[in-house]
């Protein structure tokens, strides 16, 4: 197990290296000049050149990249061009919120998606099944901004069950997590449905029933843990999908995560922040996958560590 984790970590490091290179190259090619943004409207060409030299942006691409990598290895993500703050500090101050939001979203999508999937599987072919699957479609197709605002309007403004945006307590978390999770719950309900249908056909379910177990026990103790196995691996992938969603959800709910940081940085070509956020989210994705794989390992005793 330890060897497996170690091997995966090495692989992950290589993936991160690749991500850093591609991002750096893309930003290098990005048709906007960060120095202009820094220097302001009234700057003289000399000032611009001076700043460019200070930031090392006059160097060839490879030099720039290697220097970035060198600093990165020392844990230095650089300073924001426009905020002049350490990118590391900015990210550290915002990351916990994003991670909390993602965790909430995963819980929410699993709860919604799995419940819907299980019910649909048990009631396979009935009206319940069909309507649940249509609901899952709406979940997959609904724009998050609209879902977020709608939830906010109904549950926070009208019903006052939850605060209107903000961060801090559990009740702050509910609406953003639901908004972020709705998309995934659509996917999960479909996957859970087919996985469950598959499992319910298995011999061991028949064995369990032959033992005289009750319906609930067969369902939750035998079918569910097996049906959920293929889904665990998907949770890792979710982290990647969420990275896109948090930009929208965080801004709707005023959630102080890295999504907003990234969005502002992209608008202003604040390259160190974009790089930093990209790397951190890549880390999160890679770790998410790793955790999901380890969870699969733990949940499924059959998988041997290869």
């Amino acid at each position, binding site marked *: 197990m330890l060897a497996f984790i170690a091997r995966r970590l090495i692989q992950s490091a290589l993936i991160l290296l690749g991500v850093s290179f591609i991002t750096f190259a893309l930003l290098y090619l990005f048709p906007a000049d960060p120095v202009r943004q820094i220097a302001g409207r009234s700057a003289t060409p000399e000032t611009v050149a001076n700043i460019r030299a200070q930031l090392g942006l006059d160097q060839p691409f490879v030099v720039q990249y290697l220097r970035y990598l060198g600093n990165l290895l020392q844990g230095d993500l650089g300073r924001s061009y426009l905020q002049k703050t350490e990118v590391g500090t900015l990210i550290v101050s915002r990351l916990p919120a994003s991670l909390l939001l993602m965790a909430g979203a995963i819980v929410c999508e699993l709860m919604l998606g799995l419940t819907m999937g299980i019910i649909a599987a048990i009631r396979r072919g009935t009206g319940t099944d069909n309507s649940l699957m249509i609901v899952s479609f709406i979940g997959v*197709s609904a724009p998050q901004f609209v879902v977020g605002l709608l939830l906010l309007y109904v549950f926070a403004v009208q019903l006052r069950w939850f605060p209107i945006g903000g961060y801090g307590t559990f009740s702050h978390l509910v609406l953003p997590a639901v908004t972020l999770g709705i998309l995934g719950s659509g996917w999960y309900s479909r996957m859970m449905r087919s996985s469950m249908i598959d499992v319910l056909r298995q011999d061991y379910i028949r064995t369990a029933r032959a033992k005289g177990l009750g319906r609930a026990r067969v369902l939750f103790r035998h079918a569910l843990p097996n049906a959920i196995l293929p889904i665990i691996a998907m949770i890792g992938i979710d982290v990647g999908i969420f990275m896109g969603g948090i930009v929208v959800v965080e801004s709707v709910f005023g959630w102080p995560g890295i999504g907003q940081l990234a969005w502002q940085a992209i608008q202003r070509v604040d390259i160190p922040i974009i790089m930093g956020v990209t790397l951190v989210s*890549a880390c999160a994705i890679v770790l998410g996958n790793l955790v999901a794989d380890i969870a699969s390992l733990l949940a499924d005793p059959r998988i041997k560590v290869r």
Partner: protein
Amino acid sequence: MTAVDTAPAAPPPVEEGIWTRLRRRKLALLGLLLIAATLLGAIFAPYLTQFDPDEQLFEGLSITGAPMAPGGMFPLGTDLLGRDLLTRILYGARTSLIIGLLANGVALLIGTFVGVTAGYFGGILGGILMRLTDLMMAFPALLLAICLAAIFQPSLWIVVMVIATVNWVQTARVLYAETASLSQREFIAAERTLGAGHMRILFRHILPHLVPTIIVWGTLGISTTVLLEATLSYLGVGVQPPTPSWGNIIFENQTYFQAAPWLVFFPGLAIVTLALAFNLVGDAFREVLDPTQRGRT
């Protein structure tokens, strides 16, 4: 002694075309109908509406600049520039169908190619391809899309390419796993012992088994893709205005969901319906193409 051999379980095969079998499924028919309606709406948009999609009508805005609610001259209302929403949705179907079919199709193609190649050949080539997939997976798709779209000037075709580049990853992962397990199946071993080459095994024997998965991901991908285009438009790197697409109509107007709900509701409905339609048809095709399902409903 040979006499005891049992008769075949199935009834004598009544040869039916795929079409005949599809027709028996009401839901699939409904799906086909919806897709056809969308297609026809897109193609014949100029004949279905008296307006031009980009025409900002004087009557389309109130004196204070508010859009018109559905009814009267504008069956689905107007947008914030006083354009007829129905017209824009009809014309938007063109863009959205191109994105949904083409971008999604290319993504499926790439994903299938990568996943199947890696899963079937394995080894170093498979390792490299799957690491590439992991890399793409770890890469924030949206950022990639923004950069690509900014580096090339945004246009419909660039958007198609961008979406395809971003969206193949999951298909590749899923098909990789499936191909890897298919390759271990006995009928593939049997093919090998017959001397079949890789291409033959891949195209004649593996791909047909992947069709259901490809259909599932393809149909589910339609709504994701249409929405991704919308997100790109929102970030300013999508299909450029005033060209309408269902996604960008929603995104342009989403803050007005309360003041002018029709601007979000109708294009949203269009996306859900199209996705649902494709899925119904996809489901049906999946079963119809599966010979073990012949003769059942």
